[in-house]
């Protein structure tokens, strides 16, 4: 089931936790 993750808000939907990790790293490293 981990390949079908949903996030709220919906515009941040990711497919899995590695993708979320990548987004977090890109976002918060840059800020």
């Amino acid at each position, binding site marked *: 089931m*981990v390949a079908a993750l949903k996030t709220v808000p919906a515009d941040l939907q990711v497919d899995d*936790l590695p993708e979320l990790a990548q987004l977090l790293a890109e976002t918060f490293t840059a800020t």
Partner: protein
Amino acid sequence: MELARVVAVLFDMDGTLVDSDAAVARAWRTWTDEYAVEPLAWVSIANGRLAADTVRRLQPDLGVEAVAVAAARQLSLQHQDLSDAAAAPGALAVLSLLYRFGLPWAVVTSADHRLAAARLDAAGVSPPILITEEDVTNRKPVPESSRLAARRLGVEPEHCLVVEDAEPGAAAGAPPAPWWRH
């Protein structure tokens, strides 16, 4: 809301931070055998729901007491089987990043505390805040549990990122519900 404005992350447990799919499937397989239910009937129903809710849908003719007994049996099967619960792929990496960036996080699950604590321990995940079914009156999709987690983390729920694998849980994080606002 941009990801950069997120101040905390609320994770579902089963199917999100913890891969317990095999254990859950074994428990339901045994249960459906015992209750003479079609073996895979639970698959499209159980995710994100309490055992009693799923039992009620699978066995609509059962009375209240019989549902309670059947649900207790299902939970007992899950409590007995932690053999291969593990952190989901990427879970520990995500949590490591949250610590690195100073973002608080919590686990918000519809499981009971005993099962949640056991599965999280088996997965090597130690949440600063754990919200279980005993902590709330209204379960997902009502956002009471997400709101409680945000309050315990000291953040506004509107600024939390909610990570789920099930529709009821995702709905529980959705802001438009009137009880979401303080």
